[in-house]
């Protein structure tokens, strides 16, 4: 299909994203009505007043401003904005001591905008930080979606000359692709809970891929909006354990698991998209086939509405999430090792092994929800495992 020149008219910023997709899917992932995207691109109109010329860039004062930063409303030109964005990511990494020099960093690359931007920024900053990068892509086996995304990742790896490793569910988990899992869990009258499986298994696959390339740290491209959605979702689902553990900049890696962090955690989603636009990054922006079933969709809708009511809502939610104080009893128990695979687990079996166990026994819901009957361990129900999937959560079964 050809290249669509798309532009979205908004009062304060125009977004031109060159993608290779039908606009309906794009509009869904960017959450704009499709009709907005079908306008022909035209030169940027002045931002506020048609009679006044566009403002100057607030930092270099030379070029004409090309955008307004969503949070502060500052007018910046493209180059200055990208520089500011990269500087902020650098500050996050340095101040949080997330990636020490000499680290071999496995970047979880899905082909989407967040991981593309993350890989690009880290590549720019790699000389300064003294780290080396590997791209690790996970193939969940979702037909019609993941193969196109992987093609994008391969293009990126080729363009940036970064080593790429692809780990597939089918290889790691005994032939269970996500499509097979979906077929297995379908038809019970309740939701399929695909996203539970996918999230847990993807974390495991990422860890395996990172070990394959000999990495010392794992980074993922979660942005501030993701963190805000996660905290909303955890409250709505009553997940006190995850609430107690969340809010930081990543996990330090206990008991043999690799330390994980999210350098883009403080960047809002709009800024990530703007960065990708100004750097002309090529990414894949369809949403997963199973995404409409996820509970996270509710939290995402709520977040969009909150942002419309108050622009700083995302920042406020992240602030709240950082400062939650939960009772000690709500926190998850200190983690041990899984009896089967040796990975980090808060119970006898890690969640990945438990889920796979359920799938293999023909009872896919064995490890989901309250009470894990049939599994050979005790433990209070609904305690989470340390691998924290911020990905889509299933529709809860009540």
């Amino acid at each position, binding site marked *: 299909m050809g290249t669509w020149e798309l532009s979205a008219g908004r009062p304060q910023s125009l977004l031109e994203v060159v993608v290779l997709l039908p606009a309906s899917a794009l509009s869904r992932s960017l959450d704009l009505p499709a009709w907005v995207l079908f306008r022909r691109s035209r030169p940027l109109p002045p931002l506020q007043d048609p009679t006044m010329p566009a403002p100057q860039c*607030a*930092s270099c004062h030379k070029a004409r401003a090309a955008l307004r*930063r969503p*949070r*502060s*409303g*500052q007018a*910046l030109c493209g180059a*200055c904005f990208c*520089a*500011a964005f990269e*500087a*902020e990511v*650098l*500050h*996050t990494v*340095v*101040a*949080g001591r997330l990636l020490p020099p000499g680290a071999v960093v496995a970047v979880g690359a899905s082909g989407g905008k967040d991981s593309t931007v993350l890989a690009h920024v880290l590549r720019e900053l790699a000389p300064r930080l003294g780290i080396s990068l590997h791209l690790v892509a996970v193939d969940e086996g979702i037909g019609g979606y993941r193969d196109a995304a992987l093609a994008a990742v391969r293009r990126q790896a080729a363009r940036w000359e970064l080593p790429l490793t692809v780990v597939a569910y089918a290889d790691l988990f005994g032939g269970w692709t996500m499509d097979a899992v979906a077929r297995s869990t379908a038809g019970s009258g309740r939701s399929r809970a695909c996203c539970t499986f996918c999230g847990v298994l993807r974390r495991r696959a990422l860890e395996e891929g990172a070990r394959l390339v000999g990495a010392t740290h794992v980074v993922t491209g979660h942005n*501030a909006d993701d963190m805000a959605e996660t*905290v*909303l979702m955890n*409250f*709505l*689902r*009553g*997940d*006190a354990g995850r*609430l107690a553990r969340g809010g930081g900049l990543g996990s330090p890696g206990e008991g043999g698991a690799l330390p994980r962090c999210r350098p883009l*955690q*403080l*960047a809002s989603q709009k800024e990530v998209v703007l960065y990708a636009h100004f750097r002309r990054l090529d990414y894949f922006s369809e949403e997963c086939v199973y995404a409409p079933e996820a509970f996270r969709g*509710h939290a995402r*809708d*709520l977040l969009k*509405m*909150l942002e*419309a*009511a*108050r*622009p*700083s*809502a995302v*920042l*406020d*939610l*992240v*602030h*709240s*999430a*950082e*400062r*939650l*104080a*939960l*009772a000690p*009893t*709500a926190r998850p128990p200190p983690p041990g090792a899984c009896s089967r695979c040796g990975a980090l687990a808060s119970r006898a079996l890690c969640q990945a092994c438990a889920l796979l166990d359920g799938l293999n026994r023909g009872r896919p819901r064995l490890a989901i929800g309250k009470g894990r009957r049939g599994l050979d361990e005790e433990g209070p129900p609904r305690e989470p495992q340390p691998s924290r999937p911020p990905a889509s959560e299933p529709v*809860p079964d*009540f």
Partner: protein
Amino acid sequence: MLCCRKLTPPGLLEWCSPSEQDVQGPQRLPLTPGDFCLWSHARLPLSDTEPAEARTGDQKCVKCKEGLPVVVIRAGDAFCRDCFKALYVHKFRAMLGKSRLIFPGEKVLLAWSGGPSSSSMVWQVLEGLSRDSAKRLRFVPGVVYIDEGAACGQSPEDRARTLAEVKLALQTTGFPWHAVALEEVFSLPPSALRCSAQEAAGTEGAYKAAVDSFLQQQHALGTNGVERQSQHCAQDPQSPTGPPTTAQTQALSRLFDSVKTLTAKEELLQTLRTHLILHVARNHGYSKVMTGDSCTRLAIKLMTSLALGRGAFLAWDTGFSDERHGDVVVVRPMREHTLKEVAFYNRLFAVPSICTPALDTKAPEKASIHRLMEAFILRLQAQFPSTVSTVYRTSEKLVKAPRAGCAAGPRCLLCMCTLDVDTADSATAFGAQTSHLPQMQTPVTQARAAAGPCCCAGMGGAPGCCKREDPRAQVMEQLCYGCRVNMKDLPSLELLPPYILSEAQLRSQRATAEQEIREYLLGDSEDEAGTGES
């Protein structure tokens, strides 16, 4: 009918006597979707109000297994009238009893807004104190009503009419009552914002001892003491100040009109209301305040506070007891009653309530964060019926300790919580570029980005760094994160009531003075200052 469809219901007495048929219909639910009432504060999911006749005719109450069910509380739990009442009353009593916070003989102020939850709470207290109830409640209640008509933009005639109805209702309760207009915030003293030293929390031993001594007292007094208590009814109104002046009303309307967003308006209204209630409580010697927040309301409030940046204070905002204000403790006994139970109870047992328009009545759904969250939670509740209770259970797991064991620092000027804005590397201190557009002075360039944004925005940062003698910056510095974001929507802080501004000035002067003499102070200056405060 017991419903209010108009803003000002026809008359209070008509509400108190519905027809017997309506209330005690044998096998049908008293509420049908047709005459379902939408209070401005209650939106109940209609999916559960299917009439009992849809089920098989011989369904019995799940509790006593005898009576014909009249009400469906949760999915599948049908209760008969008496069991429902027993459940409801038991919840209320158990909430008060197991917390052991309310000592016998204590003076407790009931904050009544006229809405269904607080009316139900007042009704419970009324019934609980009556002579014929088993195990009478033992505290001494008073009722306060805050007239917020000026903030909500009501006309003086409407306000007068509502006030007349309110006075009638308050007199029938028989408790000492106070009807206070919100305009009185303009005459509050700055001490309203000071957190007095609180007494040691009653341990179990202290509670038992108090109960024993109270019982002995009762025995000694015989029946005389009891009768003396019940003669408080229909006293004179305890508001010697009289109706508010026009100047005050105008000042209040100006204040609220100047706020740009509905969210900030609602937050400001809540803050002022809280201060006023606490002031009334302090003046008349009440040591506890009871508010009628129901489970649904608290779940919505929790999510709203989360979205407003008040994650550090959730336990105080939505917990059972709220001791931030020191001598007066705010208690929420209706915490476990869902709005649906409250509505059914009020309907079945003819609890009177008064419907007044609030700040967000008839506002569109996206107008404020409060509305958004309310609509979202209620919609989600219709789809997943345990949403509200899940959020409530999670809120029970929140503790009041500050995170990571940081010491008690200065308190927020408005909400009296320990300040949660620190200059450490938190996401918001770093990513805080949410200052006003025209006042943004330090663009984040590549070179200076590593230092973080300058604190000209008033979001924290090293004191003394470009500190202007700006009253606005002074006030903003003393607010917690959530209050700061709200105050951003208030363009000029001069319209705030004078007690806030003077207290802010006092605190900043004290901070400056402390800064100067810090090197000469021995030991912890916090303690010294604490005992010096009134």
